[in-house]
């Protein structure tokens, strides 16, 4: 989850009344603002559904409203457009939206907050500029109208931000740090997007970098904002969040004429919320009137008639998809600390999963037989599963993006991990007897996921006299205690010593239920074991199926 850094004094000054640290500490978490660190600067974890809270300005607006200082829908004036932006077909990033904010009083905290907001929007909603790329410009440095168009990478030269060299777009991609970082977003396209002014000077090469020409400094008062991306709804939401945050700093929002449309469009959206539904979902006995007040304390405009609330959603709330999103806000306004928990009457009978329960019965028996339980990761390597066990590789589920080769495939049997466990316990006392009962993953074309979880049981005994007869006596105990009618037959398996290996068959079954024997010295050497070992592995669920 994103972490936003805010200046505590700055935040307090924007709330609209004096507020103590204690009150802040209580109020912030109740507004989806989780305090991570509280010193001179406060670090606040925000939730990705509320990008309007990604700035000091946005948080101040929320808290001020929640505390009842400035409630209801904030009216925002948007003055008539003075600047025209001419869009044209840009295949790579089809949509652009723009806005102007004039008369902003720049100061240190404000610049920090707005830059952070821009970065967070780029990163979270924008999926690291893929869906949203934002540019802020000093509008006094260029002459409108501005043009959004696509050009060949070598067509125009400009000085990119924080550079002194003129270069074309291809050179930016190849040499500028931001160009290198985001080159994957333009590579492969023939033509790349630019925004230029009436004199063909570059304001921005979205989504890579702005021009040095329109760089925002402490002297800047009038800002031009451009946002580009593949989803029109999303970029307009981001624009609305940005301009309303700037407005909180004393700016005046001015529309831009964008291909005949006016942007930003800050008119609120209307959504109907059934107040009975709200009461039912929250479990709160609150009147319609209270609901209206609570809605207003979350910055909504609200008019409740009968059991329907007509809710006006401020233009910066990008997260409202469904009435339940508004119902949650009613709960937040009510205050989560004040909601009294209640255990419902919902009579049910608890029930354990059969496989888990039977596994516990097996665990009890194995422990009674003197075997210590171990647990291992599902993820392992094909090398350990097959090569080190002296067997040919069998089909197993492999990971496309493993964190390391050691954990790059799902285990299809448990024994290799157990032998590895014995290796890592080489310096401990012998005899060592361990077992594991856990799911293995077996590819299976009939399964909807092309694989199945199969519960297996494996046990190993390692000491100077570990033998076939010891393992058979353990298996006999399992057989007799669970009443399984299996038969043992001699078997060939390369992990075991030839002539000292067997398999278990259920009546009428062609495939063995399990295998056992004395571990082949080749395997012992592969795992660097100094003691002989005998082991078994079997399909645990089949034990109970007979």
């Amino acid at each position: 989850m994103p972490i936003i850094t805010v200046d505590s004094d700055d935040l307090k000054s924007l709330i609209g009344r004096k507020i103590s640290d204690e009150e802040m500490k209580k109020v912030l978490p109740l507004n989806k603002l989780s305090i991570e660190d509280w010193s001179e600067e406060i670090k606040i974890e925000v939730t990705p559904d509320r990008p309007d809270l990604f700035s000091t300005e946005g948080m101040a607006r929320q808290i001020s409203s929640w505390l009842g200082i400035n409630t209801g829908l904030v009216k925002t004036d948007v003055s008539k457009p003075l600047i025209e932006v001419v869009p044209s077909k840009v295949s790579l990033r089809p949509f652009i939206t723009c806005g102007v904010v004039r008369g902003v009083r720049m100061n240190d905290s404000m610049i920090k907050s707005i830059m952070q907001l821009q970065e967070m929007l780029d990163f979270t909603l924008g999926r690291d500029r893929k869906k949203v790329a934002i540019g802020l410009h000093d509008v006094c440095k260029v002459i409108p109208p501005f043009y959004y168009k696509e050009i060949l990478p070598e067509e125009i030269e400009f000085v990119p931000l924080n550079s002194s060299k003129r270069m074309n777009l291809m050179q930016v991609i190849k040499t500028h740090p931001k160009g290198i970082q985001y080159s994957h977003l333009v590579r492969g396209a023939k033509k790349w997007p630019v925004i230029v002014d009436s004199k063909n000077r570059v304001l921005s090469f979205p989504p890579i970098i702005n021009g040095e020409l329109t760089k925002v400094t402490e002297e800047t008062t009038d800002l031009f904002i451009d946002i580009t991306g593949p989803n029109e709804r999303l970029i307009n939401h981001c624009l609305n969040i940005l301009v309303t945050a700037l407005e909180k700093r004393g700016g005046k929002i001015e529309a831009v004429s964008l291909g005949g449309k006016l942007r930003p469009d800050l008119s609120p959206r209307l959504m109907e919320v059934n107040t009975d539904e709200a009461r039912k979902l929250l479990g709160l006995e609150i009147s319609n009137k209270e609901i209206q007040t609570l809605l207003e304390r979350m910055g909504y405009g609200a008019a409740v008639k009968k059991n329907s609330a007509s809710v006006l959603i401020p233009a910066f709330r990008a997260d409202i998809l469904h009435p339940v999103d508004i119902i949650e806000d009613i709960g937040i306004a009510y205050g989560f600390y004040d909601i009294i928990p209640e255990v419902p009457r919902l009579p049910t009978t608890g029930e354990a999963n059969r496989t888990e329960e039977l596994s516990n019965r097996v665990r009890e028996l194995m422990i009674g037989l003197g075997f210590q339980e171990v647990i291992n990761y599902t993820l392992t390597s094909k090398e350990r599963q097959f090569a080190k066990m002296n067997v040919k590789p069998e089909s197993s589920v492999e990971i496309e993006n493993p964190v390391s080769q050691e954990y790059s495939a799902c285990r299809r049997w448990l024994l290799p991990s157990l032998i590895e466990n014995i290796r890592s316990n080489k310096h401990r006392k012998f005899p060592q007897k361990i077992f594991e009962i856990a799911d293995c993953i077996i590819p299976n074309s009939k399964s909807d996921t092309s694989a199945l979880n199969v519960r297996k049981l494996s046990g190993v005994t390692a000491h100077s006299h570990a033998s076939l007869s010891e393992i058979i006596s353990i298996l006999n105990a399992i057989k007799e205690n669970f009443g399984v009618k299996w038969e043992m037959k001699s078997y060939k398996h390369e992990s075991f010593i030839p002539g000292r290996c067997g398999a278990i068959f259920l009546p009428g079954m062609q495939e063995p239920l399990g295998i056992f024997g004395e571990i082949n010295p080749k395997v012992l050497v592969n795992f660097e074991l100094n003691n002989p070992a005998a082991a078994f592995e079997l399909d645990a669920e089949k034990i109970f199926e007979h």
Partner: protein
Amino acid sequence: MSADMARKLHPQERLVLLSLEAGEATDETIARETGLPKAAVNKAGLWLKLKGLIEYKDKKEFKISLTTEGRNYAKNGLPEKILLKVCEKDQSLEELRKKVPELTIALAWAKRNGWIEIDKGKITVTKEGGPALSQKTHIEKALETGETSDEAVLAQLKARKLVTVTETKEKIFALTKEGRELIPQLGAAKEEIGQLSPQDLKTGKWREKEFRPYDIHTPVPTAVPAKMHPYTQFINYTRQKLIALGFKEVKGPYVELEFWNSDALFMPQDHPARGIHDVFRIKNLKKGFVKDKLLMKRVSETHKNGWITGSAGWGSWNQEQTLSLIMRSQTTAASARTLGSGARYGKFFTIDRNFRPDVIDATHSFEFHQCEGIVVGEGMNLRHLLGYLKIFGKEIAGIKEVRFRPGYFPFTEPSVEMDGLVNGKWVELAGSGIFRPEVTLPLGVNVPVLAWGIGFGRLAMIKLGITDMRDLFNHDLEWLKNKRIVY
């Protein structure tokens, strides 16, 4: 010295103590005198020493053994003695050469002993020489008996290479002052029972004997039991609590469709948590399938435009992606399957493994357990959700003081975080919420579904008293031996 101590002595201790009354002795001597095996003498000696009744003293001893030459002399006599014998009859050098072996040595030692004088090639037996013939020298005695206490003799034997000497240290048992004082209290050894024998039981002989009291403080090694792995113990502990609360345990597969892992949970297909850095993709399996085609259609419509849920939807859908296979990244997938397969009423939970491409360290793992569940039923609401969370906090985590705050999960609205007061600090314990209609309606569920998840790994670490997440899978036998039972 208490009579109690005397009473509690093991019969073997008693025997050893008594045998020492006459003076210090080695274990061998004591064993000979008491008839006990040497090992038993030593064990009893150690116990007595721990009780301060005896002490150990070291005694140095020289043990000599004859060399081949030494054995030859022992059998045939010393050359100088043979020389003396021959000299009695004939002192001519010629005769001596014939009859005396190693003549040079014989002459040298006979001269050194003052038995003969040699003048101009002529040998005369001295006054001392005469009687020497009938007396045994110290050297001869030493060779005969194989021992000597005379350092000078030993030096001579060594110099003549007749013996090899090994030095041995022997442990001598000696009574301490306390030990000596205790002896009068030992009295006559009464017949006492140590290990009760089947014979004594059968014959009823035990009735006539007294049971010797044992010292419970005698150190004994700790037995090593085989146990369940501590993490299994905690998982079972939690399972039992949830089952007792009326929850039914469900399972889902580790290899999962993106459909169940994310799409059915209304997570947008380009959600960051679905990216290559957060989900393991399967390399070698072809795509899976969703049996219920209508269900898949409803989910896809909901993503595209909200379907009939009243939602705006995400505006996009990729059929290819929903059927791709991944390693399950959240157990919520099992909850989605439970609803998808027809659960319309009840309480369900799962505790199982999940997988994410995290590098493994003290706080992260690529494979980790989650514990989560759902409550499905008409009229379920936010207060009920808080009610269940509070019970979990108390029953599973053992935490009485909890607080709730709004949170965010892509599939729930409203969403709640629960913190618990652990050692004076608020710690995140559980995340939860009510499934969005975009989740429930396409799954065919028309009632509210409360969904919750417990920070299971963290809770297990608190309960097991560990600080490194990797220890949840620890298989060091010594570690397992020392880990306490979870209850």
